[in-house]
């Protein structure tokens, strides 16, 4: 009984959470803003990487493969720290926000590239043959036939990826960006009460829940059309 009371006092403390809420929400807004921007750059760069990787031309293909393997194979936390602490030595001074944005965009581009590649390669060969036999060139075929269909197929996995990115943005707390987790940490330290972590976890859940619902919805809808 005593332990349960302690658990509630330290991890579900209503008054601590209530006081911290405005600060936490400010952190949450930054988390959302940051994640959208990182996803935006990740999608653009990821699409370029995917097309490079599919290409038969070696100077496009191999750098893309190397890039993807490197960013998927090394810890994101180290990429973030490198961008923040190491880049200044070669004259690139980035604020925590921009260093984090750089690392997370580059990192998510690697994952997004693989999603796009799978989506593009899932389009039946017959689609490309039909398009080419009408006289459309490679880029017209990509632009009007392959990508519109691939984009529909990759929306669910892309949204999944976005959920992961949003949670990964909590790693920015190590380079002093006051996003949601860092906000929770600062108040937890100040009040000597980690209830704010619980609150932060719920806020993450509240943000991601509609997104995962969106994935389910899209998956069902595309099943009907296909």
């Amino acid at each position, binding site marked *: 009984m005593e332990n349960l009371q302690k658990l509630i006092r330290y991890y579900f403390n209503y008054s601590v959470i209530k006081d911290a809420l405005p600060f936490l929400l400010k952190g949450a807004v930054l988390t959302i803003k940051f994640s959208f921007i990182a996803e935006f750059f990740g999608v653009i760069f990821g699409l370029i990487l995917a097309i490079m990787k599919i290409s038969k031309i070696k100077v496009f293909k191999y750098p893309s493969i190397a890039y993807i393997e490197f960013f998927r194979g090394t810890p994101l936390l180290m990429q973030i720290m490198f961008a923040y602490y190491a880049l200044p030595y070669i004259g690139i001074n980035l604020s925590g926000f921009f260093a984090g944005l750089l690392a997370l965009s580059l990192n998510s581009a690697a994952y997004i590239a693989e999603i796009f590649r799978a989506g593009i390669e899932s389009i039946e060969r017959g689609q490309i043959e039909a398009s080419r*036999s009408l006289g459309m060139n490679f880029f017209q075929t990509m632009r*009007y036939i392959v990508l519109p269909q691939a984009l529909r197929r990759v929306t669910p996995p892309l949204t999944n990826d976005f959920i992961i990115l949003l949670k990964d943005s909590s790693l920015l707390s190590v380079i002093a960006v006051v996003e949601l987790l860092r906000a929770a940490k600062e108040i937890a330290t100040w009040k000597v009460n980690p209830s704010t972590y619980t609150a932060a976890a719920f806020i993450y859940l509240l943000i991601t829940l509609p997104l995962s619902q969106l994935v389910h919805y899209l998956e069902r809808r595309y099943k009907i059309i296909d």
Partner: protein
Amino acid sequence: MIKVVNLHKKFGDLHVLKGINLKLRKSEVLVLIGPSGSGKSTFLRCLNLLEEATFGKIFIEGVEITKPGIDVNKVRQKIGIVFQLFNLFPHLTALGNVSLAPQKVLKMSKKDAEHSAKEMLNKVGLSDKINSFPAQLSGGQKQRVAIARALAMNPDIMLFDEVTSALDPELIKGVLDVMKSLALSGMTMVVVTHEMGFAREAGDRMIFMDDGIIMEENTPENMFNNPQNPRTKKFLEAIL
């Protein structure tokens, strides 16, 4: 119109076409038959450069299209192809399927392209389906949209690759009727099919292919009633 000289095609070690020689006049309808794996489809696909010939030459209106560095997109504009599995674009309506390439390749305005697309769809009997997506069409309707899509590019030659093989029997007639009227209108056609009724009615000439070579070339009448090659005879007996 088409001249094929000693055409060979290899896929790795697999020698699919072993020296095809052929001439086709304008407005001629050539029907290709043969067992599966005989190279009919590969031959057809070589004609619009979906497959690259390993050896040999293809001339269309005197221009060698197998020459390296030729603008394949230009060649393909003039040669329409219809596939066994339709290959309609599922994200576009029937109208979108037919009007896309004329806009992007022939640089027609959207209005003009859609206007002529509607005419094409009307021609194949689908004027009431212009706004349907492929998933909402039957196999026979899909195939007729595919024919309209190829015709919208105003090709000189039309290739048909077993276009009725994937269709339910009751849907085949509608597609064949469209092909017959196309043949009557003077289109130059190469048709891979097992529809012997079509071959007899619309074909000017028939070729029996087996094992990558032309075994027999004949008029449809003679091919059916008096085949010269024993393998032709055996094949026809098996399918008729």
